[in-house]
C-alpha cells in the first residue's frame, strides 16, 4: 500500500501528514490530526455526520481520500470558534435554540448551515430544509435545528448591517 506525504490546509493552518492512499479524509482528520469533531455514521455518504467544508462547500469526508484534498482549504468544527473560544454565530444559535440532543450529527449540521448562510443571506425555510436534507439527525426531528439556523440567519444579518 502506497504511503503519501501530503500537506493539508485545515482551518487555515498547514499540516504535514503521511497517509495511505486508501485513507479517507475522515480517518485522516480524526486519526492523524486528532480532529475528532467529524464523525463516522454510515461511511457510505448517506448520513452526513462526517461533513466538513472543502473550499466552503459541504462534503462527505468519508467519501474522499485524504490525498485528493491536498490543494484545498478544509474547514472542520474545531476551526469555527474564535481563538478566544467564542462560539460562531451558528454554534451559538444551535446552543440557544437547543438544536441538538446527543451532539453526534451536530458538528456536521453546523458546518452545513454555516456554508448555507455564507452564501445565502436570507434563506427561506424551504432553503434551510433543502440545505440540511443531506444531514440525518435521529434526535431532534429537525425542528429546533431549523429554528437555530433561522436565528443564526437573523444574527448574520444584524452583524452584516450593524
Amino acid at each position, binding site marked *: 500500500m502506497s504511503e503519501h506525504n501530503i500537506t493539508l490546509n485545515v482551518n487555515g493552518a498547514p499540516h504535514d501528514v503521511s497517509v495511505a492512499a486508501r485513507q479517507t479524509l475522515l480517518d485522516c482528520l*480524526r486519526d492523524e490530526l486528532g480532529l475528532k469533531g467529524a464523525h463516522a455514521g*454510515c461511511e457510505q455518504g448517506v448520513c452526513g455526520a462526517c461533513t466538513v467544508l472543502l473550499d466552503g462547500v459541504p462534503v462527505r469526508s468519508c467519501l474522499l481520500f485524504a490525498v485528493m484534498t491536498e490543494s484545498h482549504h478544509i474547514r472542520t468544527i474545531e476551526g469555527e470558534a474564535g481563538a478566544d473560544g467564542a462560539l460562531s454565530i451558528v454554534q451559538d444559535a444551535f*446552543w440557544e435554540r*437547543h438544536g441538538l440532543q*446527543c451532539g453526534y450529527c451536530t458538528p456536521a449540521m453546523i458546518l452545513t448551515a454555516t456554508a448555507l448562510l455564507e452564501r445565502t443571506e436570507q434563506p427561506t425555510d424551504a432553503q434551510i430544509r*433543502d440545505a440540511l436534507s443531506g444531514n440525518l*439527525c435521529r434526535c431532534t*426531528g429537525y425542528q429546533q435545528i431549523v429554528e437555530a439556523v433561522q436565528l443564526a440567519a437573523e444574527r448574520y444579518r444584524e452583524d452584516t448591517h450593524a
Partner: protein
Amino acid sequence: MSNSGARQTLDNTAVAAESAAHERTFRYVGHHRRTKEDRRFVAGHGKFVADIELPGMLHVALLMSPHAHATINSLDPSAALALAGVVRIVTGEDIAALLAPMPHGLHLPEIRGFPLALERVLYAGEWVAAVVATSRAIAEDALELIEVDYTELEPIVDPERALKGGPLVHPQHGTNVLFQRTFTWREVDADFAAAEHQLSHRVRWGRNATVPIETFGVIAKHDPGTDILDVWASIQMPKFSENIASCLRIAHTSVRAHYDVDVGGSYGVKRGLKHAVLVGWLARELARPVRLIEDRLENMAGGDAHGPDRNFDVDAAFDADGTVRSLKIRALDDCGAWPGRAPLQLGKPVGAIVGPYRINSVRYEAISVATNKTGQVAVRGFGQAPTNVAIEATMDLIAEFLGRDREDLRRQNYIRAHEFPYRIPSGSEYDSGDYHAVHQKLTEAATAANIWQWKAELRERGLLAGVGIASVLEPGGGNAAFEPLMNPRNDTTTWMESCLLRVDRDGGISVAIATSTSGQGHETLMATALGEELGIDPDLIRVIHSDTLIGLPSNTPVASRMAIMMGGAAAGAAGVLINKLKQIAAYNLSLDAEELSYDRGVVFVTSDPSQRLGWPELVGIAHRQYHRMPPGMEPGLQAQYVYQVPKGRDLPAADGTVQMYPCYAFEAHMPLISIDPLTGEVQIHAYLIAHDCGTLINPDIVKGMCCGGIAHGIGAALYEEFSYDAHGQLLTGTLMDYPMPSTREVPAITLLEHCTPSPLTSFGQKGAGEAGYLGAPAAIVSAVNDALAPFNQNISNLPMRAADIAKLIPAHAITASANRL
C-alpha cells in the same frame, strides 16, 4: 411555569390537594435556559467512544455469518493470521467455555448465548469470529482471508409458522415459542356478549429500530496492578458492568464502566453486552486495550439492535352509542434468534393497555417466538408504540363502523379528569390527566391552522388527502414490574435512581450521576432540579458522570424515567443537605431546627429572618470548625439519596394485575397528509401535537423529545424496516436501504403544551423521553386511512411504503386525479 391550566380542570379533591404542593413558583424549572451539555457539542468537544485513544490499543473487526441458519463445520484462520498486524483471531469455541452465558429477560437456561457463534449460526450477521489487529483496516483485510465451511440449514423466518413449529432455532428448548401467556382482566366474555357490536382487525408493526447515527462502540483496558477492567462504551443499559463481570466470571468490583462517555444517540438500543464481553475478554487475554467500533453493517445486521416485530389481532366490543366495552388483543412478537430482553417488551404495554380510554375489560395474549433473524433490544417505548397503533387503529375502525367522528368517539371514551387516579383493568393506576382539555388545545390549533379546509383544498387539487388522529399515553418512571410479570423467577421491585451531592470547602456544589447521557440532557435536568430545591443557580452546579465503582445505584435513562427519578433523587439529596444545614444553624443559634427556615443557601429564624447563617459560614463550619457542629455530626457537607420509583412496591398478582409505571403523560396528534395517487408517496403538510407531561423542567428539552419522537414515528410508519427475504437474508443493512426521515420528510411541527401535574413527583413532572414516538405512527396510519377512505381501503401494515399504498388506489381514482393535477 404556571400550573393554572391544571387548577382549572382538576376537580378531584384528593388530587387537587396533592397538586397544591406543586403550586409553587419556580425559579429555574420550566424556564428557557441553555442546557449544560450543548456547548461542548456545538464546539466539537463532545467525547464519544470512538474519540478515545489509548496507547497500544488494538482494534476488532467481526466476521459475520452469511447464512441465516447453518452448521459451522470448520474455520481456518491461518491465512488471516499470517497478515502483518493481525494479533489474534478468536471464535466461539475459543471463548464459550471460559464465559458465562449472557443473561436473558426470561428464565430459559437451556438457551445459552455467547458473543461469538458456537457450532451453529442462527441468523445472517451473527458473529462467527473476531479479528484483533493493530488497526481496524488491517482487521477488516484479515476478515476476507478467513475460510469457513458451513452446511446450510433451513431457516425459520415467518413468526406465525414459528408459532406452530418449523425448524427449531433452539432445539434444546423444544419449541420456537419463548413466551406465551393470556391475561384476562375483568369480565371480557360478559362484556363481549353484552356489546351490541364487535369488529376484528389485524395490525402489523414492521421490524424497525431507532438506529442512532453513532453505531455502538466499546473500549476495554485491563490494569494488571489493580485487576480492574476499565470499560468505555456508547452505552445506555441498566446493570451494564455487572452483566459484563458476570459473563466474564469475575467480581462485579473488577469492572469499572465509565459514564463520562457521550453517547451518540440510543433511544433504547445502545445495549452492547456481547460487544463488551468480547472486548473485555480480549483486553484481559491480550493485556492490551482493545476497541470495537461497529461499522454500519455490523450495527444493522449483527449488532442485535432491532426493535419489536409484531402482529396484532384485535377484537373490539362496543355499543351503538360509541361506548367501547372490551378489547381482546393478541400480540405475536418475532424476537429473532436470541431472547435478550425482547420478550419483556410485550410486558410494558400492560401498564397502558386501554390507552386513555374507559374500557372495562381486556384479554391480552402475549406471544414471543424465536426465528432466524437478528435479535432485538429495547427500543423507545419498550413495545408501547406498536401497541398504541393497535389501540388507535381500533378506535378509528369503530368510528368508521358507527359513522362517528373519530375525535368525537375518542372524547366520549376518554377517562374523565375527575376520575383520576384511575385504575385500569390490568391493575395500573393512572396518576393524573385531563385528556379533554389537551384535546381541546389540539382542536383549537387545528382550527387556527385551517387543517380541515386545507385537507379539502388538497383533495380539490387531485391529491388524496387525510387527517390523522391519535390519542395515546406515555407511561413514565420505569419500575421493574414487567420483569416479574413476564418472568416469575425475577423478583425485582425497584429501579432506583440516585444523587450523590458534595459541597466543597469553597461552597461549590458538584453532583455525581451514575449514568451516561445520550441526548436527554441529564446534566441540565439534575442541575435544574437541584438548583430549584436548593435555590441556587443551576449554572453554578457542576454535574459529573461517575463510574460504576463510585456511583450510587442507577438504572439509566430507560422508560421515560429520568425527569421523575432524577428529580426525585435530587429532591431527596437536597432535603438531606438542608436538614443538616438547619441542624448546624440550630446548634449555633441555640434554637430548635423546627424554628428555622432555609432559602437560597441561607438558614434563618422563621420568626426573625435577621437571625441567619449564610452559605459561606455554614460551609466553613462543616468543613473546618468542628467545634461549632452539633456533637456527633458527620463533618463535611455532603448528601446522598437513592430514590425508589413512586408506587413501586408490589410483585404482580396471580392474574397479572400490577402497578406498572407511576406517571402517565398524554399526547394527542393530528397530522395532515396527502398521497400522490400515482406513486402512493405520502407527504406530510402539517403536524400538530398537544402534549401533557405535567410540569416541564426544561421546555426546550421536552420540545426536542416530542419533535424527535415524531420523526422516529414517521420513519416507523412510512419508511423504516429491517426486511428479510424468505431465506432469512437481511435486505436493508445499509442506510441506503433503510431510509430514515430527513428534513424533507419531517414537517414543521406545532407543539401545544398543557400541564396536569403528577401528584407523585417532586415538581409535578412526568416522563417525556418517548414523547411523540408513542403516538406518531398511529397518527400517520390514521391519516393515510383517512386519505384512502373514499375508496373503502384500509392499510395497517407498517411501514406503509409508497408502493403498498399505491396498490390500494383504484385506477379510476388515478385517472380522476390526473385530470385535476
